[in-house]
């Protein structure tokens, strides 16, 4: 204690300086708003930076929890999405084709499974027999033809897409109505198909649109694609062959319409009779 007092008295100038200077600084910082603000700000810069560093580090430790909570939230939100509900009562849109007295019925459906890179591609849609989908119905999307229904379940259906060896569609050149047959062909390119059996009298142009014909199970005039090559290498048949760029990008297919041709049964029945007669 005595030593301490001696020490303090020996260096009294320094301690007095500290005391007076602290008082002065307190006065200075307390009564000058600019210095006050600056002082607090600069201390905030220091502490703020430190806090941020610590926070950055801490956030790594919490990543697991954050992930879990985000996943939970995602699942919860996904449950509220319209697409996660199975719509039992399908909305049907009716189009009255007055010229041909045909009645087409459209059933909207979402694509829930899809493939484009196999030899025979199918896609699954979320509408089945309960929604009125039946085997043999055509499937289109806003861009063009998609395929036809081959298997039907109560809630789902399997659609044989255009990208299938067995799919043959009666097509026509837009404008001139020259008929032909459309197939995917052998090139396995999901963007290119083949139009063949077009009469030699037809004069197709590059870029001309290819649509469904009156003879198909689709409504007439649904786009299939555009002619990209007038002399296809994968020639088939003895008439004109041409490559067609598909209108539909099958890799991005999300929503489709199932086309219910109400007179198809009658037509098929008549045609079956015709075959019997032959």
């Amino acid at each position, binding site marked *: 204690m005595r030593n301490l007092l001696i020490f303090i008295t020996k260096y009294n100038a320094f301690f007095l300086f500290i005391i007076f*200077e602290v008082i*002065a*600084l307190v006065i*200075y910082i307390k009564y000058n708003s600019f210095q006050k603000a600056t*002082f607090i700000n600069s201390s905030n810069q220091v502490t703020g930076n430190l806090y941020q560093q610590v926070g950055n580090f801490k956030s790594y430790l919490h990543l697991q929890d954050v992930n879990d909570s985000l996943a939970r939230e995602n699942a919860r939100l996904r449950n509220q999405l319209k697409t996660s509900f199975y719509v039992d009562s399908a909305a049907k849109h009716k189009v009255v084709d007055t010229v041909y007295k045909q009645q087409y019925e459209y059933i909207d459906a979402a694509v829930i499974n899809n493939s484009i890179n196999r030899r025979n591609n199918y896609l699954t849609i979320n509408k089945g027999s309960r929604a009125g989908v039946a085997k043999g119905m055509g499937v289109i999307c806003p861009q063009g033809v998609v395929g036809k229904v081959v298997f039907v379940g109560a809630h789902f259906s399997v659609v044989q897409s255009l990208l299938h060896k067995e799919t043959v569609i009666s097509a026509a050149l837009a404008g001139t109505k020259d008929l032909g047959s459309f197939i995917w062909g052998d090139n396995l390119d999901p963007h290119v198909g083949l139009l063949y059996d077009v009469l030699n009298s037809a004069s197709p142009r590059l870029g001309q649109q290819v649509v469904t014909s009156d003879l198909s199970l689709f409504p007439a005039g649904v786009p299939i694609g555009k002619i990209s090559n007038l002399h296809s290498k994968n020639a088939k048949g003895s008439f004109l062959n041409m490559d067609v760029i598909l209108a539909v990008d099958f890799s991005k297919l999300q929503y489709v319409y199932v086309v219910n041709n109400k007179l198809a049964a009658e037509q098929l029945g008549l045609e079956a009779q015709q075959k019997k007669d032959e």
Partner: protein
Amino acid sequence: MSRTIIVNLLRFILLVFIQVFLLKNISLYDLSTPYLYILFILLLPFETPNILLFALAFILGLTIDAFYDTPGLHITACVLLAFVRILFISITVQKDGFDNEPEPTLSNMGFRWFFTYALVLTLIHHFFLFIMEVFRFDEIQYTIGRAVLSTIFTVFLILVSGLLFYKSKERK
């Protein structure tokens, strides 16, 4: 003793008056502003107790601050000045020399010592003052420039005042 008190009191009042009413209005190119009032602390007798020295520095700073509307700014600088004065004197002046020359004036201590004394103390005071005033290191070059130029001005005025009140040693 009483004469010393009266002389210092008068000096205090005179320097504050000069500082507040004359030098406050003088500023060369907004760079060089003299703070002659510190001469009061420079010229306090050697024998002044440390606590009294600090108290006087505090009061002087407070007075100047009252006129300058910067509470605390000149106090901090003056308290630092008092501390530097104690250090400087303890380093450069022999204890036994106090009896002959009671006050560190130009006439008592000689030009060389007094000039160094005034220069070092003024420089430290002004640096601290200007840095405290700006309170950031952004414009440090400008601040240092102001401090150096003001120091030159103040030291010049201190030397002039020292020469004005020069008493030759023979008369003593």
